[in-house]
């Protein structure tokens, strides 16, 4: 076991607490750099989606994980970023400009959503953000002169400094990876400075934060703006990746997917956003696989256990009907959320920490280490 001997305040400030971190993140980075030249184009495409979802996850983590303000409207922020890109692209605006414009515009909208949200907490805030997402969805469908309504908009191939960057090529992958890494570093910087601490303070006790001199309203709006801005940046990349956008892509289900990203990853750390994104992107091909192959497998099992040919065919068609039922995906997402909230509230990253601690302390690990304890009743009086 490693014992950290701190001799300088710098030891608590730096991003990599010790050389072990540098080594493991170095290996990860090397793998990610080599990846597009080794992996199949399908996997690279999945990795691009992981980067985009993880970027949104980091944005949502700032708002929900660190400031404690739930949001089910992040699909709308993604849409605003995506549509800004598609719209400005028509006027031959260069990529860096509309990329930043997408982020900025979304940040402004995020701040505007933040103001009415100041007076709301918990479930009411969730409802407010859902309504905001519906409004945006409706505006996108109706404002045809700008958004082309339900016909959607075609997004041209990205061109960066005169070079075409196709959305399936390695350059686009590196662009998304770069955006993700910069977002993570920026967020980590924020978290180790007064603003990040003010966010956490608001999450844990607004009364105490206020009496410590934190302007709670201002920081909530800031949190909304930063979170939305990051999501907007991801939206620009999202538009390019899909090369076609229409209002029905940015529905409540997408917002729920973002919640899944942070909930399943673990809402207390940025690692969670990345792990959650990997989980979510990888579960989709898995579900498709189940849908295609599960009926056959079950029919095969039924046949092995003596079911007749007709019965087996019957079973197969029944299972196939269930597997391709409308809204099954949403139901499965719901089950996943419930299971995680019940059995692994700290998410995948929490599980990883437990495994790590198990090996670090072997054979002294005890389960109670991660048990949530409630020692005293918090004052509700000053709410």
């Amino acid at each position, binding site marked *: 076991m490693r014992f950290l001997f701190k001799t300088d305040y710098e030891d608590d400030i730096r991003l990599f607490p010790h050389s072990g971190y540098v080594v493991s993140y170095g290996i990860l980075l090397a793998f990610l750099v080599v990846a597009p030249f080794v992996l199949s184009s399908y996997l690279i495409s999945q990795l691009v989606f992981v980067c985009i979802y993880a970027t949104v996850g980091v944005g949502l983590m700032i708002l929900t994980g660190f400031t404690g303000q739930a949001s089910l409207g992040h699909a709308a922020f993604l849409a605003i970023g995506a549509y800004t890109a598609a719209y400005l692209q028509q006027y031959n605006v260069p990529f860096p400009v509309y990329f930043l414009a997408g982020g900025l515009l979304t940040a402004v909208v995020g701040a505007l959503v933040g103001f009415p949200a100041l007076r709301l907490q918990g479930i009411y805030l969730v409802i407010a953000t859902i309504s905001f997402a519906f409004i945006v969805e409706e505006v996108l469908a109706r404002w045809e002169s700008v958004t082309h309504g339900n016909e959607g908009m075609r997004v041209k191939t990205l061109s960066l400094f005169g070079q075409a960057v196709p959305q399936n090529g390695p350059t686009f992958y590196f662009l998304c990876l770069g955006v993700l890494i910069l977002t993570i570093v920026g967020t980590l910087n*924020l978290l180790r400075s007064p603003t990040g601490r003010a966010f956490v303070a608001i999450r844990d006790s607004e009364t105490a934060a206020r009496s410590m001199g934190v302007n709670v309203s201002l920081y909530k709006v800031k949190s909304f703006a930063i979170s939305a801005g990051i999501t907007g940046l991801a939206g620009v990349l999202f538009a390019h990746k899909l090369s076609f956008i229409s209002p029905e892509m940015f529905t409540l289900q997408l917002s729920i997917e973002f919640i899944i990203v942070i909930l399943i990853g673990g809402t207390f750390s940025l690692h969670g956003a990345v792990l959650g994104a990997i989980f979510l992107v990888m579960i989709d091909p898995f579900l498709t696989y189940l849908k295609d192959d599960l009926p056959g497998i079950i029919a095969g099992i039924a046949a092995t256990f003596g079911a007749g040919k007709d019965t087996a065919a019957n079973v197969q068609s029944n299972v196939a009907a269930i597997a391709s039922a409308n809204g099954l995906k949403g139901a499965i997402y719901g089950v996943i959320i419930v299971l995680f909230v019940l059995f692994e509230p700290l998410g995948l990253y929490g599980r990883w920490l437990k495994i790590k601690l198990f090996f670090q302390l072997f054979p002294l690990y005890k389960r109670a280490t991660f048990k949530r304890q409630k020692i005293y009743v918090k004052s509700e009086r000053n709410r």
Partner: protein
Amino acid sequence: MTYFRADNLSLHFGGLKAVDSVSFAVEKGEILSIIGPNGAGKSSIFNLISRIYPPTSGKIFFEDQDITEQPAYEIAGLGIARTFQNIELFENATMLSNLLVGRHRHSTTQLWQELLFLPNVRAREKAHRRSVEQVIEFLDLEVYRDKLISGLPYGVRKVIELARALCSEPKLILLDEPSSGLNVEETGDMSFWIRDLKTDLGITVLMVEHDMSLVNRVSDRVIALNYGRVIAMGSPSEVQRHPDVVAAYLGA
């Protein structure tokens, strides 16, 4: 010309007069305790001063400035820090980041500088850290630096809350029942620290307290409240002998 002054302060919830035209003054550098039975309005007075509640009527002055209309988050900026009766720490953060939030009123860096973590942010962070470290040493909290609050015992949390208030380098500190939930030994420590606040750090202390031994040990003056009104004011022994105070606690 007083350091801190409350003028005819009232707080009514409908017909209930939680605080009923209370006036008192705090001299610079003294320790003033507010005592009274449960529901006498002690904590309400604190919540009025830290602007969690707006007063129904009356005014509050600090250093000859009217702070009655100041927003709550600016009270800390003026140099008034407080602790809470039921502890309001940031549960899911380490003690260190809790204390660093106490430094919030001294932070000067801009958001974009923080995103890039420019050298000036780094330098500010180290400076914050240095002054937090002084408070940690003052209150003997070295062991708990990187511990999460949610895993710490009640008595330690109480001290950490005092530490967080001290990190903001206040001129006036409001202590809401500093000894509640502490054992005899911890209460003893607390009384020494409160004395040190006054003598070593020159901080003026306004304190709500039930433990009369602590009140007697540290207070310069005592105010007794009952039903939102001041019933006695003076030295600890005077107030304890005052017939109205005796009646309030024991019944007439």
